């Protein structure tokens, strides 16, 4: 490892523009002639649209156009779709209802877009939006998935009887039933995974520009995957054919999953730009974000775990109701199925598992993948069950886990996944040591003397990243492949551009991807540029989510670098009159091994482009492309330990210490990896203690601003103790597993296990706000 190579703690190249205010986000973009859009949204959770009157709005100052769903339909713009087909256990396909980018006959959640107004200024667009008169006939709404299938519940889409989208099974029901029959102990729990709002700090935005002369569209959008946006908008929404549509995702201010999906607004801005003849920009305000960004989680689960006399797990039964909201968002069906139930084996040897998942429509915002996506829900089920079991058996939670750990690899679980490598005991040991687990009793006694309840809780998570291979996910219903592309361009002066289909919205790719190039060729980081986020520059890519950019995106770069290296060595061998097998690359120089003959990197590059003296038959230039399709998922895993103090008088929880011991395989930049863990932990702790999206029974979102939805603040969190161990992933050339979601996956059960340990009651819902904890303490006493 050099000072800028793989494994080095390099400060980020991209930081300079962000710390000087020179970042370029969608809202910072200005196009000549650009005008502003405001959406008229449904104030009702469920209603028929009887009449839309736009006359008054059309006459307002500055108004350029007021457009409705009927006009959008007439222009052939398609419905939004879910791109992952799930079949119910009876073999029937999932029941997807229609989702028009602008509703024209019925609205199904508060925030459903109905009309768009385009005006000279943002203020004028909003003023005119308020003047649009829509007559609704209100219908009964349902917000709770557990009630949406009841008799008499409102029918949300005609396609989905009883609001049931699919009823899906995984595992083996007979084997599991047999295992339960001979079990010595059975642990049962009802578990709710609370609904969350992702809340990337940059609100979603779109700028659509139709160029009449070229009959060409450009869309600047806050996307984690601009190429997928272009594909979907071309193939399904009929906005424009791919060659007539350029999608640019410039600097994007966080995503956490919520910016994977294609939303109505970017489609409408492009269409409205053609309709009105002006470029159209829309930027969400925070309440629009709360109302319309895809939410996360919202699972209701009943789980039963069977153990033998020796406390070894013999079977697991899980039944989950997943609330998917009013419409099926782009990957909403995959989250509670292949990203959730396939992780229900946790870190443990479980011979028989059976899980049933029902996905259900409600009159709430669409729900889709949010940081971790299914894996936090699975981990919460498993790790609450393990902790509860240990308490029921009266044995140490660490020992119960250790007894059941998978210890030999590869390990085939009963729920599809084949774990390739790991050392779960190593993470557990590291976390117990770092948290001084052995000294906890003393600390608890000291807290008791202050009148505080001290508790400790752990969570041993496993997740799956870099979903792959494409053929396998295709067979499971995915509408896309999950490979990644890379192009490495060596310029004539030796500087290098790497074009990648991954997209950075905080992950630091401009630094880590360049470190990979530095490691290979020894060229300084400053001479390497990473190009991403523009469909005109990068041919195709699948974007960034599911911690795939390292394991999949960087592996594609490695493949392209292999090809560049091979050609560079051929050129150098020719220039140096040596055998290409004898050429080595060190510190930016191509050398003949064991001699002082060498050619600097830039001279070799120049030779490739002057083409005055190339090996016979070789094409000029030095540019290579690769597509990489992994052979398997990767399996990051680790152990988190949380220690809390609860004030029994107020129910207030303080996190005294949080330890994370992760195994991410090989690491490119430890500083960036630690940052990813910190951020994930904050989101997971936020879920456990503070965050929750609440609808009232009429379908109004009560938590639609930062006044009502509690975001984790600096004072809510401790500094974290993080460390990593390493069992390299055998499935990709870099041995990388991925680190983006672990913190959010592993932390909620550690926090809740700690609080329930402190208060001596196992019945505690998330978020464990002071009033919830206080009530749990009182309930346990009576």
């Amino acid at each position, binding site marked *: 490892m050099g000072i800028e190579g793989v494994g080095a703690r390099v*400060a*980020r190249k*991209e*930081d*300079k*523009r*962000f*710390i*000087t*205010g*020179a*970042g*370029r*986000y969608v*809202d*910072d973009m*200005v196009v000549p002639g650009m005008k502003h859009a405001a959406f008229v949204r449904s104030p009702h959770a469920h209603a028929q649209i009887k009449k839309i009157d736009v006359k008054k709005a059309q006459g307002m100052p500055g108004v350029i156009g007021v457009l409705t769903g009927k006009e959008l339909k007439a222009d052939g713009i398609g419905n939004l779709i879910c791109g992952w087909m799930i079949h119910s256990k009876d073999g029937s396909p999932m029941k997807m209802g229609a989702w028009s980018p602008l509703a024209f006959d019925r609205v199904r959640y508060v925030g459903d877009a109905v009309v768009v107004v385009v005006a000279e200024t943002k*203020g004028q667009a909003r003023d005119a939006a308020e003047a649009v008169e829509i007559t609704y006939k209100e219908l009964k709404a349902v917000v709770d998935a557990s009630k949406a299938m009841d008799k008499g519940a409102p029918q949300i889409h005609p396609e989905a009887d009883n609001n049931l989208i699919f009823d899906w099974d995984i595992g083996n029901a007979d084997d599991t039933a047999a295992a339960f029959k001979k079990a010595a102990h059975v642990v049962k729990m009802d578990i709710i995974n609370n609904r969350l709002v992702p*809340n*990337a*700090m*940059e*609100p979603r935005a779109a700028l659509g520009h139709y160029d009449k002369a070229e009959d060409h569209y450009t869309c600047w959008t806050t996307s984690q995957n601009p190429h997928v946006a272009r594909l979907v908008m071309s193939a399904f929404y009929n906005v424009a054919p791919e060659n007539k549509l350029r999608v640019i995702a410039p*600097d*994007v*201010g*966080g995503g*956490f999953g919520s910016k994977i999906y294609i939303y109505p607004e970017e489609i409408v801005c492009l269409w409205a730009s053609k309709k009105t003849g002006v470029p159209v920009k829309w*930027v969400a*305000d*925070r*309440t629009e974000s709360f109302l319309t960004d895809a939410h996360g989680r919202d699972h209701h689960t009943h789980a039963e775990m069977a153990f033998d006399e020796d406390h070894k797990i013999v079977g697991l039964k899980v039944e989950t109701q997943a609330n998917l909201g009013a419409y099926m968002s782009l990957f909403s069906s995959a989250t509670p199925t292949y990203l959730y139930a396939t992780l229900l084996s946790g870190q443990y040897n479980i011979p028989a598992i059976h899980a049933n998942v029902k996905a259900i429509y409600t009159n709430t915002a669409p729900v889709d993948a949010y940081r971790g996506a299914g894996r936090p829900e699975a981990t919460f089920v498993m790790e609450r069950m393990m902790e509860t079991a240990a308490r029921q058996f009266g044995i140490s939670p660490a020992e119960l886990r250790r007894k059941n750990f998978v210890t030999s690899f590869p390990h085939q679980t009963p729920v599809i996944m084949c774990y390739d490598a790991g050392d779960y005991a190593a993470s557990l040991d590291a976390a117990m040591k770092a948290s001084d687990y052995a000294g906890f009793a003393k600390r608890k006694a000291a807290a008791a003397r202050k009148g505080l309840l001290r508790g400790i809780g752990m969570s041993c998570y496993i997740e799956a990243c870099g979903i792959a291979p494409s053929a396998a996910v295709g067979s499971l219903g995915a509408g896309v492949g999950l490979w990644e592309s890379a192009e490495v361009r060596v310029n004539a002066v030796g500087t290098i551009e790497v074009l990648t289909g991954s997209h950075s*919205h*905080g*992950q*630091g790719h401009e630094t880590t991807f360049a470190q990979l190039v530095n490691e290979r060729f020894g060229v300084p980081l400053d001479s390497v540029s990473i190009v991403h986020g523009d469909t005109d520059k990068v041919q195709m890519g699948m974007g960034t989510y599911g911690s795939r950019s390292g394991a999949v995106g960087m592996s594609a770069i490695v493949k392209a670098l292999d090809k560049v290296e091979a050609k560079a060595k051929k050129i150098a061998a020719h220039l140096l009159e040596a055998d290409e097998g004898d050429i080595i690359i060190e510190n930016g120089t191509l050398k003949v091994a064991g001699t002082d003959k060498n050619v600097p990197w830039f001279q070799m590059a120049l030779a490739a482009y002057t083409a005055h003296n190339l090996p016979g038959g070789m094409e000029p230039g030095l540019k290579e492309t690769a597509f990489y399709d992994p052979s398997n998922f990767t399996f990051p895993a680790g152990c988190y330990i949380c220690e809390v103090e609860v004030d029994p008088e107020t129910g207030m929880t303080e996190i005294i210490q949080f330890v994370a011991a992760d195994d991410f395989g090989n690491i490119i930049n430890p*500083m*960036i990896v*630690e*940052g990813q863990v*910190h*951020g*994930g*932990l*904050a*989101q997971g702790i936020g879920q456990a203690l503070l965050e929750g999206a609440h609808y009232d029974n009429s379908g109004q979102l009560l938590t639609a*601003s*930062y*006044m009502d939805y509690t*975001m*984790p*603040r*600096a*004072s809510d*969190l401790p*500094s*974290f103790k993080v460390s990593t161990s390493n069992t390299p992933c055998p499935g990709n050339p870099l041995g990388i597993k991925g680190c983006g979601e672990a*913190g959010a996956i592993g932390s909620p059960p550690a926090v809740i296990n700690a609080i329930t340990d402190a208060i001596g009651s196992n019945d505690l819902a998330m978020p464990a706000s002071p009033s919830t904890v206080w009530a749990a303490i009182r309930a346990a006493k009576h």
Partner: protein
Amino acid sequence: MSDVSLMVNGKRVSGAAEDRTLLVHFLRENLGLTGTHVGCDTSQCGACVVHVDGKAVKSCSMLAVQASGSTVVTIEGLANGADLHPVQAAFKEHHGLQCGFCTPGMIMTATDMISRHPEGLDEATVRAELEGNICRCTGYHNIVKAILAASKTMSKVAKGKAKQAA
């Protein structure tokens, strides 16, 4: 419409703005200073913090006409030419930013915080003072580290200057 006249980042600027125009929108849209961000509608997130007459202010909670006559420093005006401000440098060195969206507000809040605490800062104070700034990426861990480090650097520089003056 009203005339708004300000000193922004050392330059005198003026323009007409609707009475309802917020300072943040005047900075972004009239002056093109897009480093100051809008992250919420309710003055909680702090992405829009700038300095008005030497004090950290959420520029979404002030009208442009209210600010007229004031001296404003935005994130674009913090560095001294090519030399980063110590807080900017500390955010980079300690990885105190990821997506960068909250960063300008964080840095403007931090410089104000450090200048109000010449005696130095501790972790609890930094965390309490960050109440009005939300970050979704970093978990605050490295932001806190960066502010503490910048506070130390700046107090050393201040002591050095005081010594020179003496």
